[in-house]
């Protein structure tokens, strides 16, 4: 039965840039098993800081996937979106 999905953001600051494709491949495998998926990522130009957006039942699901893939992160949290209304 389809479950409601949430927007999850994961932040990561790291001392050195990483191979983004490789990271994505490893985490994606773990995400797929957990019925979650990667939506988009924002990286600084030097590749050291990122904010990644996922769709998952909750934040812990995404944290599990990161840990299972052996990839550290700083914070993962459920995001609500607020917009300025004109």
């Amino acid at each position, binding site marked *: *039965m389809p*479950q*409601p*999905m*949430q*927007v999850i953001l994961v932040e990561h600051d790291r001392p050195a840039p990483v191979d983004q494709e490789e990271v994505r*491949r490893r985490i*994606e*495998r*773990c995400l*797929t*098993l*957990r*019925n979650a998926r990667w*939506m*988009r990522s924002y990286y*600084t*130009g030097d590749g050291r800081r990122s904010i990644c*957006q996922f*769709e998952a*039942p*909750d*934040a*812990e*699901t995404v*944290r*599990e996937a990161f*840990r*299972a*893939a*052996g990839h*550290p*992160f*700083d*914070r*993962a*949290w*459920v995001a609500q*979106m607020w*917009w*300025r*209304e*004109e």
Partner: protein
Amino acid sequence: MQASKLRISVLGDLQVLRDGRPLALPPSRKARALVGYLALAPRPQPRQKLCDLLWDGPGDPRAALRWGLAKLRPLLDDEDRVRVVADKETAAIALAEGELDLAAARALVGPRPAAAPVDALRRAAELFRGELLEGLELADCFRFHEWCAGEREAARSLRLAILDALVAALEPENPEEALARGRERIAVDPLAERGHVAVVRLLGRLRRRRDGLEQYEACRRILESAFGTRPSAEMERARLALSSPAAAELRSPPPPVAPRAPLPHFVGRARELAAADVVIAAAAAGRRQVLVVSGEPGIGKSRLLDELDLRIRRAGGLVLRGRAFEGETLRPYGAWLDALRGAPLGELSELQRSELAPLLPELGAPAPTTDQGRLFDAVVRVFAALSRRGPVALVLDDVQWLDEASASLLQVAVRALEAEPVIVACAVRPGELADNPAALRAVRLLSRAERVTRIDLEALSRAELRDLLGGLAPGADPDSAWEASEGNPLFAIEVARAPPGGGGSASLDGLIVDRLASVSGRARDLIPWAAALGRSFPSGRLAGVAGMPAAELLAALDELERRGILRPSGEDGWDFAHDLFRRAAYQALSEPRRRLVHREIAHALAALPDPDGALACDVAHHAALGDDAALCVQASLSAGARAARLFASAEAREIVERALRLAASFPPARRIPVSLALLRIAVDASRTSGGDPALVPRIGALVEEARREGFGPEVAAGYAVLALAHWANRDDAGTVEATAVGGDALRDVSPQEAALETAELVGCLAALERDLPRARTLAAEARRLGALPPRAAANLTVGEGLLAAIDGRAEEAAALLERGLRDCRDVLPWEESQLLARLALIDLELGRPERVLERTARMRETGPRFGDGSAGVFANLLEAAARQRRGEDVPEEELAADLAALEVDSKLRLAQAACALGELDLAAGRIERARRLLLRGCAAADAVARPSLAVTARALLARAELARGDRHAAREHVEAARRAMHPLLPTARAVRLLREAAAAAGLAATPLRERGPPSGEPAAAR
């Protein structure tokens, strides 16, 4: 004496001018500040407020204020006009219109500078001499300082808005002045990239390439040093336009020198126009109307839509026009994009812009869209918002060529906008609908909608035709035109325009061909390019592909327009006067010529910047027709991905299939990876419709081929795509299988990597309770590998610990997890918090509540350090469970906030906490509480697909129901648990609990399939 002209100028250093001459201001800065403040204040200010503003501190502020006002009177008051108005309570400076420069500037440009006339903008811009109250700093009056900062910001924003409006207004006709204003803007706000972009663009227009590049460099340096960022896509486009003007879009062409071919004036169709008027009036009254205009080619459908457009605008409505094109059935939402771009997008709210941005990337950062429904909702909402100001018409021409995504959106929009003042008008060629099932469905739905008006256009009468031709071709013989054309307007016009004296063709197509052939010179050279482009095009694009210098191009376009072959379309685009012209021109090209033309177009488009992939579809289309397989396949990756992102699944699949056919001829080293990438896009596109089982064997075949060829990385990548395909098909077992086998595949490539992946997979499968027999097999294999790298060893130990816990060997599990904890500390520190939580749960199970507190203390330390967002909250609940285990009654309210937090952050932990606490509540006789907790736990376990927890919760719920005396409910829970039992069985403990609950409820035991042996030997050995 007449009051002399006084003016206060605050847009720069403070000045007070009388008859244009500046007066000497009081030397006191506070007095000057008082002038500035009161001049800008909209109403009289309380004396106390002024004192606090400027004379806060020891001394007599009120006296100081009195003194200050006294200084101002001789400055500002006239004999018969008092401006400094003060009473016991308040003080003010009363200024008339025109006496304050800031007010004058605001009055000149109105609330929307972008819409103000150029002259007014110029005068307003001249008023700004510098920053507001420049130089007037009062270091110790922080309130004044705060106020002044706010006012300065507002004045600055106004100035920037005025300058932006001037640049935009002057750019087309007067780029020199626009440049000066653009530079002024940069001086005011040097850190804003948009100012630099405008200047680079203007320098490009003025052909000052070197200056443009210098400006670009300056901007780049500023962005890097101030923000550490690089220039935006817009800036890069402006820079690109500097170096290759042919590739850039030209602005609207200068007015033509020769008279244009007249548009046919509107003739006849009285009945149809009356029907259209009824539709317009009905829509204005607030109910959505549908208008379907059908007829053969050339009968006048588009002309009728033009007339409808005019009438709607006259009635105060907004018209958004789009068209489908014959060659563009793969361009997702093509007709809609044209229509939406005609909307006043600048007036949309930021939320609306972000929701539309996936379709129209120029609107900025897109809001995340998770499904087609939301994207469609966003479009519908924009229409509804626009229709609040007056009727809105969506006018779509040539609907018989509509792509599937557009057709779906059309159907949704017609339904959703039922109660809005909206007109949906379509023109369709019924004869060509049969070839396009999606369009056929859409037209059928429209025809059956409520409040639909069908217009089937018929031939014009002889008299009407005479009237038409009288205006267009006065020398022609209307009777013979009528006979030849049988009343088809386009045919008749062509007959009338054909050179007299016979020898011309008798058919419409023939006449068109003759007309095209009569063009010569540069104009004739343009025709193949225009025809091959396949749709309306900006003149810049035509210039770019035809490689013609701008002056020649414009002369050629002019001639084609005079001859009625091309006509302007939209703001700066062109199109064939009728689709039949395009077709005839295209068919006149030989096959080899067509391929060449398409190939050139593909390469020219591929050279343009395309950050969003919107152009890729066109590139792929032309490359396919140009037989450039490599470019087509390359572009199809972007185009297909974009179509999938926009949920245009059918288009995405077609793009992929076309590219796969072309890639079939590539050598394996290229074909396999690119085919896998394309099939991955197909998988993504299939998700919205529940997957496509047919993709699985195709991906599998590629993987096999990669394996035979020895392409290790492709094998692994292929398994990843296969896993995704299974997941899209909601085939859990397949997903796990593909993931696991993919790990195997890596072994040949890199044994170290493979060991790590295997160990990780064991942990993953155990944590998720999936495919446990395989997990055990893999664990045993990994152990046999001997010494493992530290990460793999740590992962493996943890995985084995979890497997032991699943099998019910709690003590062994605890020991393994303790070891895992030590192993992880150095290599996988972020696992610590998790493991501590697991150990705490085992401690509770084994009746060791005192150990729980050690674990939770450490969880609180280590969790937050490694991003464990709910460590603290879970620790609270574990401690509460430990306390309850010891006999304490923890009130429900104490747990409420933490449970709610877990609901959002970690449903797995919520389920674990609920089961642990619920079981303790049951044991202590707190039945209702247990029930509430366990229901929550059950829902949470289902949400994260953890069968054991779901079964455990249901088994415990059954017991709770029995305790309440409700055997029926207990049985229902047991049955539900049995139905939910995964083929891959849950933990031993869950199974045991369920058996006990079933027995207590008086249900017969069902034979549960035996689980795999705990030692890891393959099941077949039993």
